[in-house]
C-alpha cells in the first residue's frame, strides 16, 4: 500500500549504510518497518534503519515529522503499532523504558528533563544508580561498604562531568544552570547509565555557535572514547552535516531519504521537504 502512493519517494537503497569499521559487527540498532498511529493520525510509518556499533547517525526532518516520536518508540515510551526494534540483536518488545535503558539505550530530551531540585553531581549519580552495588539495608545502616560505593560513585561522576567540561559545576543546583550546561548535563547523565547507544534530541537547541562547535567535538569524543553509537535529531544543519556519518530524513512520518551527508545535501526530495516545491525549484535554478 505505502509503496503505491509514494510517488515522490526516491528509491531507498536496499543495502544497509553503516560505516566501514562497523561492517561485520552486530549493529546496535536494527529497526524494521516501525510505525505508530495516534488515533487516526499515522505519526510514523515504515521506518527502517540500521545503526552501526560506533556510528554517528542523524535523524532530520521538518517540524512535526515524527522524529521525537521515533525516540519515544525506541525507548518504549510508546508501544509501536507495527514493526520491531532489535537492540544488539534482542527484540525490545514489551520491555519497560527502564529495562530498555538497562539494555543499552540512553537518551536526552528535546524539552530538557533534569532533576532540577537536585545538585549537578546528584543528577549524574542517579544516572549511575544501577551500577552502584549497595543493598538497601547497607544504605540504611551506612555500612563501610556504603561509604566505599558512594566514594567510587562520586569519583566516577566527577570524571564524567569533567569529560563534558562541567566538573566545576558539580555542586550547583541543576535547574539553575544556563541552558547549554543543562543540555550537556543531560548528556552526562545519559552516559552514566553505560549505554550502547545514546539518543540526543536536538542537543544544540538554544546553544550559541561556539557552544555548538564544542558540542560537535564532544559528540565525536563520546563515540571515540566510550566506543558507542550516537543517534541525534537536530535542526542545525552545520552540526548534522559536520558529525553524522549516515543521515535519515523524515517527512510526515516516513523516511524520504537515507545516505551520507553529501547524498542528503543534493537529494531533491529532501530539498523539497524543507523548502517546499517552489523553494526547491528556485534552489535548483540558483544551483
Amino acid at each position, binding site marked *: 500500500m505505502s509503496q503505491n502512493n509514494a510517488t515522490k519517494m526516491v528509491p531507498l537503497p536496499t543495502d544497509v549504510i553503516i560505516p566501514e569499521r562497523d561492517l561485520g559487527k552486530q549493529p546496535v540498532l536494527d529497526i524494521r518497518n516501525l510505525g505508530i498511529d495516534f488515533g487516526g493520525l499515522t505519526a510514523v510509518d515504515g521506518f527502517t534503519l540500521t545503526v552501526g556499533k560506533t556510528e554517528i547517525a542523524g535523524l532530520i526532518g521538518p517540524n512535526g515529522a515524527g522524529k521525537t516520536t521515533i525516540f519515544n518508540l525506541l525507548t518504549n515510551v510508546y508501544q509501536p503499532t507495527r514493526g520491531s526494534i532489535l537492540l544488539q540483536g534482542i527484540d525490545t518488545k514489551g520491555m519497560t523504558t527502564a529495562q530498555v535503558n538497562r539494555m543499552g539505550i540512553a537518551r536526552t*530530551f528535546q524539552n530538557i528533563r533534569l532533576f532540577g531540585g537536585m*545538585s549537578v553531581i546528584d543528577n549524574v549519580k542517579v544516572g549511575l*544508580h544501577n551500577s552502584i552495588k549497595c543493598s538497601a539495608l547497607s544504605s540504611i545502616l551506612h555500612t563501610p561498604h556504603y561509604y566505599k560505593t558512594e566514594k567510587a560513585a562520586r569519583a566516577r561522576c566527577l570524571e564524567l562531568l569533567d569529560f563534558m567540561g562541567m566538573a566545576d559545576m558539580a555542586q550547583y543546583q541543576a535547574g539553575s544552570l544556563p541552558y547549554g550546561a543543562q543540555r550537556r548535563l543531560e548528556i552526562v547523565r545519559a552516559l552514566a547509565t553505560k549505554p550502547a547507544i545514546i539518543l540526543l534530541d536536538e542537543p544544540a537547541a538554544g546553544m550559541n555557535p561556539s557552544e555548538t562547535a564544542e558540542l560537535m567535538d564532544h559528540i565525536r569524543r563520546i563515540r571515540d572514547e566510550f566506543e558507542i553509537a550516537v543517534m541525534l535529531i537536530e535542526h542545525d544543519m552545520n552540526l548534522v552535516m559536520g558529525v553524522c556519518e549516515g543521515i535519515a530524513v523524515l517527512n510526515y512520518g516516513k523516511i524520504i531519504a537515507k545516505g551520507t551527508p553529501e547524498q542528503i545535501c543534493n537529494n531533491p526530495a529532501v530539498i523539497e521537504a524543507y523548502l517546499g516545491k517552489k523553494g526547491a525549484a528556485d534552489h535548483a535554478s540558483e544551483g
Partner: protein
Amino acid sequence: MRLWKSKTSRQNIITLAAVIIVFSAVFFMNQGGMLSSSLSGQLVPICVYIIMALSLNLTVGILGELSLGHAGFMSIGAFSGVLAVTSLGQAIGNPLLLMIAAILIGGVLAAIFGFLIGIPVLRLRGDYLAIVTLAFGEIIKNVLNCLYVTIDPDGLHAAMFSGAKLPGKFIINGPQGATVPEKLSNFGIGFVLVIIVMLIIMNFVHSKEGRAIKAIRDNPIAAESVGLNITSYKMKAFVISAAMAGMAGVLFAMNYSAIEAKKFNFNTSISVLVMVVLGGMGSLRGSIVAAIVLTILPELLRGFDDYRMLIYAIVLILVMILNSNQRFLQFKITLKKKITAMFRKKEAAKK
C-alpha cells in the same frame, strides 16, 4: 547559577544532636519528678506523633505522594501489638524484650498492608494513593470495630460479629476496643524509637535509594529513562513509611490500658498531615517541632477542642496558599537574607 544547598546533611546531624540533648534533659527532669503530671503524661504521645509525622513526611514530603490514611497503619500496629503482647506475654518474661517484639510485629504487619495497597496503586500516576489510603483508613477502622478476639490456653479465637460465643478472655472486644495487658511504653523506649526512625530516614534519603526517590519526584519520565523502576522505589519508601506508622501505633497502644479503633480515624490522619505540612514538606526538623507543638497545644487549649479540626483546616489552606505564592516565597528569602546579614554585622562589630 545557584549553589546547591548541601547543608542538609549537616542540618540533619544538628537536628539529631538537638533531639538527643532536649530528650535527655526532659528524660532526667521526668525521672527527677520535675515535670507537671500532664506534661509527663504527654511524653509518649509526643514520641508517637513525632514518629508518625516523620513517617508521613517520607511519603508526602520526600516521595511526593499523598497518604490520607496514615492512622490506618497506626491502628494495625496498635492492635497487632496488643495481640502480640497478650499472646507472647507468657513466653517472653522480660517487658523490654516483649515490647521490642511487639514493635517489630506491629511494624511488619503495617508494612505488609502498605505493600498490598501499593501493588495496585503505586503503578498509577496521579492522586490515586490519596483516595485509596483514605478508604483504607476508614475500612480498617470499621473492620477493627467489629472484630472480636479472645485468648485461652488453646490460643487465639476470632470472630467478626458480636453474638459469637468465643472461649476464653477477650483481648479485642468490638467497639469497646482492645485491652492492653500491661503498660509497656515509657518515654525511654519512645526516645530510642524516635532516634532510630530519624536515623533510618536520614540514611535512607542520603543513599542511592533516596536519590532515586527524589529523582522520581522531580521528573518521573527522566527517572525511567535512566533505568529506574519507578514503582519499586515508590514501594520501598511507602512500605518503610507504613512500617514506621505501625511501630508508632504499638508505642501508642502500650501507653494505655485500653484502645479503641475509632481513635485512629480520619481526624488523626489529618492531624499528622497538618504536622508535616506545617513543619515543611521534606523537612525532618520541621516535622519534629510541629509534632511536639501540635501534640501539646490541644491539651493546653482544652476549651477549643470543638474548633480544633476547623482551625487545622484553615491553617492547612493558608499554608498551601502562602507556599504557592511567589511573592510570599520571595519575601521569605529576602527576610532570611536580612536576618543573616544582621547577625553577620553584629559578629563583625564584636570583632
